[in-house]
């Protein structure tokens, strides 16, 4: 672990902390509260200078901060709109250290699954074909709107979700959907103590460098998959690897650090901590792994097994589509 200038040369006094949300669900903001009573310790040493989820901050306020005013900004959510990109650029300038916090900022997260659809398809689903919708005028969001008070420029939806690192320089990444409280607290402690590694967008903090399988208690029996099962239709055998039982568990291709929470609860790992090892494309990594352990000796059987996997793309890339090699639907 190396210490660098990211926090050690900060101005004397309390640390200035920021948290911002872009294209995210809000779970990350809540995860910060998961540090529990440590929050009180945190407030002892740090002031929160930006956290739209809990307090009112105007863009103007932030824009008025001097550059580098925020010591550490935890940025959650991917970049989905022009507004989010602009704020990302703004926050970047105002922050000494910018952290991509959570799966969405790091890999696009669940919202990035929409990259498989075009903006038109998304608009149709949301504003027109949704059965619970009342939209008689077929109104759609606009980027320009003329009002008597003047013309409005409204944020524009991008054709796909980008990672935070796609638009600004990112210093660290904290994976998870959301990051686990204990890991978050470890990171914050390190930040406060000035013990953070050299900044680099590829450096992940708040996780380990193993795979979820490695910290999972379930035993591997070197058994090939005979049949794929969906978690809501079958009860797994305890203490035996879920994947070997035929449940599509992403533990093998997912970075550790969460403590294998899902497999502990009889649920498959969905891969929120991102790719493991040197792999850059978590979905393909899982595809290779799972494609290599099916028990088929004929093509018919192979196709049958492959057919049993429900929505492979959505499953393998649940959190990482924006980081994938192909990134989006053509």
């Amino acid at each position, binding site marked *: 672990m190396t210490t660098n200038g990211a926090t050690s040369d900060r101005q004397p006094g309390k640390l200035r902390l920021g948290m911002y949300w872009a294209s995210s669900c809000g779970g990350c903001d809540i995860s910060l509260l998961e540090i529990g009573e440590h929050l009180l310790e945190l407030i002892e040493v740090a002031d929160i200078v930006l956290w739209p989820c809990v307090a009112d901050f105007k863009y103007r306020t932030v824009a008025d901060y001097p550059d580098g005013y925020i010591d550490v900004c935890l940025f959650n959510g991917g970049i989905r709109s022009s507004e989010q990109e602009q704020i990302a650029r703004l926050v970047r300038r105002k922050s000494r250290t910018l952290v991509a916090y959570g799966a969405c900022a790091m890999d696009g997260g669940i919202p990035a699954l929409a990259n498989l659809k075009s903006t038109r398809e998304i608009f149709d689903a949301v504003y027109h074909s949704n059965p619970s919708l009342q939209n008689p005028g077929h109104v759609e969001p606009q980027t320009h709107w003329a009002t008597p008070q003047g013309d409005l420029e409204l944020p524009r939806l991008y054709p796909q979700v980008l990672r935070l690192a796609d638009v600004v320089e990112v210093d660290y990444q904290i994976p998870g959907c959301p990051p686990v409280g204990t890991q978050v607290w470890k990171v914050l402690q390190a930040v406060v103590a000035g013990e953070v590694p050299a900044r680099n967008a590829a450096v992940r903090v708040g996780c380990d460098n193993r795979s979820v399988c490695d910290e999972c208690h379930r035993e591997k029996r070197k058994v090939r998959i005979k049949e794929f099962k969906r978690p809501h239709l079958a009860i797994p055998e305890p203490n035996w690897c879920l994947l070997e039982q035929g449940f599509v568990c992403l533990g093998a291709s997912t970075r550790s650090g969460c403590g294998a929470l899902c497999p502990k609860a009889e649920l498959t790992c969905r891969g929120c901590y991102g790719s493991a090892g040197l792999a850059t494309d978590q979905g393909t990594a899982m595809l*290779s792994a799972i494609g*290599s352990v099916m028990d088929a000796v004929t093509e018919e059987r192979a196709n049958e097994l492959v057919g049993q996997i429900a929505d492979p793309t959505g499953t393998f890339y649940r959190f990482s589509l924006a980081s994938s090699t192909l990134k989006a639907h*053509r």
Partner: protein
Amino acid sequence: MSQVETVQPPAETETPLAWEPRIIAFLCYWCSYTGADNAGTSRLKYPANVDIIRVMCSGRVDPDLIMIAFAQGADGVMVCGCHIGDCHYIAGNHKTMTRMPLLSRVLQDFGIEPERFVHEWVSAAEGDKFARLVRQVTEQVRQVGPLDWPGRMYRRGVGHGEDLQPWGDQA
């Protein structure tokens, strides 16, 4: 490593008239590569669009390599291995047999047509099959047209921000 991944605009975009499909073929050394040799010794003619990459076993072909090939501009990818039962390494091609249909499903979700990704067994004696396959794949890729993944992603703004309005950030 740069924090902001910069994508250069595609280096040399050919005019639509000059477009020729670019196809990468991964061939296992023991059967399919020898099958391609057999096509050569039999002087069977096929188009020049398929470039062969030799691997020891089709089981070595990581789906990631295929993704990368498409992402870098391949219009089509072929994976050929020994027929089931002929694998030089007992069952390497069994893995190919299960990976490739799965990959094919995923590629289709990304909008890559099934015509662009072909997975076939070619034995050492099947020079004619290999030549036929190359002709067929080249033709079907030609039919579906250029994929041009780098260009498309660049135009969609992947990896770089879009035109920004001076809005909200005036400090």
